[in-house]
C-alpha cells in the first residue's frame, strides 16, 4: 500500500511578464512512497524538492500530473487531518508560548481540548522542550524552533509526516534526536517523507531515496541497491610490522599506500585483490590489524547523478531505479 503516489508531476511558475518563459520547477516527476516507509528526497538547492512537497500539501497547484496522498488527491482538506508537515526554516507565531503554540496547531487539526493537553506534554518531552513550555517562541534558539516545529507536525498523531529539511539548523545532538524521532515514527507504522541535502543522515535512516535534480527524478530505490549497482567496493587494510616499499605485488594491487614507520594503510580498488594482498602481507611477516570493506557512499551516487545530468541532454535523461 502506498501513502504517496506521484505521477508525471510538473510545475511551471509563470515569469509574470508576457514573453518571458516560465520557470520549470518540476518536470514529469513520478515516485511512490509505501506505508511505514522512510523516504529521503534528495537534491541540491533549487532541484524541486520543496515544490513537490508544497504540491503534496496543496500549497501549490501542479501544472500537470497527479499526486495522491493517503488515497486522496493532494490538497484534499480532510486528508490533511492525517498529515503532519514541517516546512524548511520555519517561522512561527513568536508571541505564543510553546504550550499555546502546540495547542493552536492541535485545535487546527481538529483535536478537542481534553485531547490536546496530554499530547502537548508527550510531544514536549519527545523533543526535549518540557522546561520551555511557558516560554515565548521569540526566545527560542534556531534548534529549539526546529524541534517545536517537529512537535507541531506530530501533535495530531498523523499517519504521514512530511518534513522539509528537518535537520537544518540542528547541532549533531539535535540531528541525532531528529533521526531517532523519525525512526521511532517508522516503528509505529508511520510514513515519513522528508527532503534533505544532508546525505549521511539519509544513508543512516532511509528505507528508500529519490534523487531529484532540475525538477527530474534521476534515481530512486533502496540506498544499498542504488549504491551497489553502480559502484565497486574498495577495501582498506591496516597492518603492522611491515614495509611494503619493496613488495611489487602490493604496489601493483593497491590503489593507494600510506606507510608511516612500521604501520601501513593499503587501499585496494576491489575485493578480488584481497586474498593475494593479505597473503603477501603474511608472507613478509606483517601483522594484520584490520580489513575494512568500503561501500560506495550515497554521496558518490549523488555526485555521479549530478555529472550525468550535466552531460546528458534533458530529453535523454532517464530514471535509474
Amino acid at each position: 500500500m502506498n501513502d504517496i503516489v506521484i505521477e508525471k508531476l510538473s510545475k511551471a511558475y509563470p515569469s509574470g511578464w508576457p514573453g518571458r518563459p516560465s520557470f520549470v520547477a518540476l518536470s514529469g516527476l513520478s515516485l511512490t512512497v509505501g506505508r511505514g516507509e522512510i523516504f529521503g528526497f534528495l537534491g541540491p538547492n533549487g532541484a524541486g524538492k520543496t515544490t513537490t512537497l508544497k504540491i503534496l500539501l496543496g500549497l501549490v497547484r501542479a501544472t500537470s500530473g497527479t499526486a495522491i496522498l493517503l488515497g486522496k488527491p493532494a490538497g484534499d482538506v480532510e486528508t490533511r487531518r492525517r498529515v503532519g508537515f514541517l516546512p524548511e526554516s520555519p517561522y512561527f507565531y513568536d508571541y505564543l508560548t510553546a504550550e499555546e503554540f502546540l495547542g493552536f496547531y492541535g485545535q487546527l487539526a481538529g483535536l478537542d481540548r481534553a485531547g490536546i493537553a496530554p499530547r502537548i506534554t508527550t510531544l514536549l518531552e519527545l523533543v526535549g522542550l518540557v522546561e520551555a513550555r511557558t516560554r515565548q517562541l521569540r526566545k527560542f534558539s534556531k534548534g529549539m524552533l526546529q524541534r517545536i516545529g517537529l512537535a507541531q507536525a506530530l501533535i495530531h498523531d498523523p499517519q504521514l509526516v512530511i518534513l522539509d529539511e528537518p535537520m537544518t539548523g540542528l547541532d549533531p545532538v539535535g540531528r541525532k534526536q531528529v533521526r531517532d524521532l523519525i525512526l521511532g515514527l517508522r516503528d509505529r507504522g508511520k510514513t515519513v517523507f522528508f527532503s534533505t541535502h544532508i546525505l549521511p543522515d539519509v544513508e543512516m535512516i532511509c528505507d528508500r531515496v529519490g534523487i531529484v535534480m532540475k525538477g527530474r527524478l534521476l534515481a530512486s530505490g533502496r540506498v544499498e541497491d542504488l549504491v551497489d549497482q553502480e559502484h565497486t567496493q574498495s577495501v582498506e587494510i591496516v597492518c603492522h610490522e611491515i614495509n611494503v616499499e619493496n613488495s611489487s605485488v602490493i604496489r601493483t594491487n593497491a590503489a593507494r599506500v600510506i606507510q608511516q614507520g612500521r604501520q601501513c594503510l593499503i587501499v585496494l580498488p576491489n575485493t578480488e585483490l584481497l586474498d593475494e594482498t593479505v597473503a603477501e602481507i603474511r608472507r613478509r611477516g606483517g601483522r594484520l590489524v584490520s580489513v575494512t570493506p568500503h561501500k560506495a557512499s550515497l554521496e558518490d551516487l549523488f555526485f555521479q547523478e549530478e555529472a550525468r545530468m550535466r552531460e546528458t541532454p534533458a530529453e535523454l535523461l532517464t530514471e535509474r531505479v
Partner: protein
Amino acid sequence: MTAIGVIAFNTFRESLRDKILYNLLLFAGLLIGLSVMLADLTITEHHKMIADMGLGAINLIGVVIAIFVGISLVNKEIERRTVYTIMARPISRASFILGKYTGLTLTLFINIMIMMAIFLLTVWFYRMPMTISLFQAVQLIFVELMVVTAIALFFSTFSSSTLSAILTLGFYVIGHLTVDLKGLAGKSESEAVKAVATCVYYAFPNLEMLNIKGQAAVGIPVGFDYLMLATLYGLVYAAVIIMGACLVFVRRDF
C-alpha cells in the same frame, strides 16, 4: 472551536500582544483629553468641540488600526511562511480568510469599546447630554472600520504591505468623496466623465453614508431606518469584498 474560531482567536491574541495597539489606545486617550483642553479655549460650543474631537479620535485610531493591521493580515503570513503550516492543516483557505477577518474585527470592536468608554467618561465628567446620536455615530464608525478592514484584507491577499496600504488609503479617501462624484456625474455634459464618475460611485464604498459624526456632535440623531440601512449597506459591501479576498486566496500558490 471551529477552524475560523481558532484562527480568529489567534489573530485577536496576536493583536493583544502587540505593543503598538496599546500605544494607539494611549494616543486616542490623549486626543480625547486634548478635546477638553481645546474646548476650554473656545468661547461657546464646548460640548460640540468635545463630541467632535472624541468621535474623530475614535474614527481616526480605528482607521489606523484597520488599515495598518489589515494590510499585513495575510501578506505577513505568506512572507513569513507561517501560512505553510496553517494551510497544511484540515482547514479551507476561505476559513483562514474569514478567521483572520473575524479576529481583526473583534480586535477593533474591543478597541472601539475602550475608546468609547474613555469618551463617555469625558462626556459624563463635563455633564454633557449623553444623547443616542453619540452611540449611533460610534455604531457607524465601527461599520466603516469593518468595510476598511475588508478592503485592506482583500489587497493583502495579493500585494505587498506598502502597496496594500496605498490602495486601501486610496479607497478610504475616494469612499468619502463618492457623493461628490455622483454630483459631478449629474452635472457633467461629457458622457465619458458621466460614465467614469458613475462607475467609480458604484464600485467604491460610500463611506460618507456611514459618517454622521457632525450631526451626532450637536445631538441630532438619525432615524432608525437610516441607521439600519447604512449598517446593512456597510456589512453587505464588506461581505462582497471578503468574498473577493477568498476567491483570490483560494487560487494563489504559496
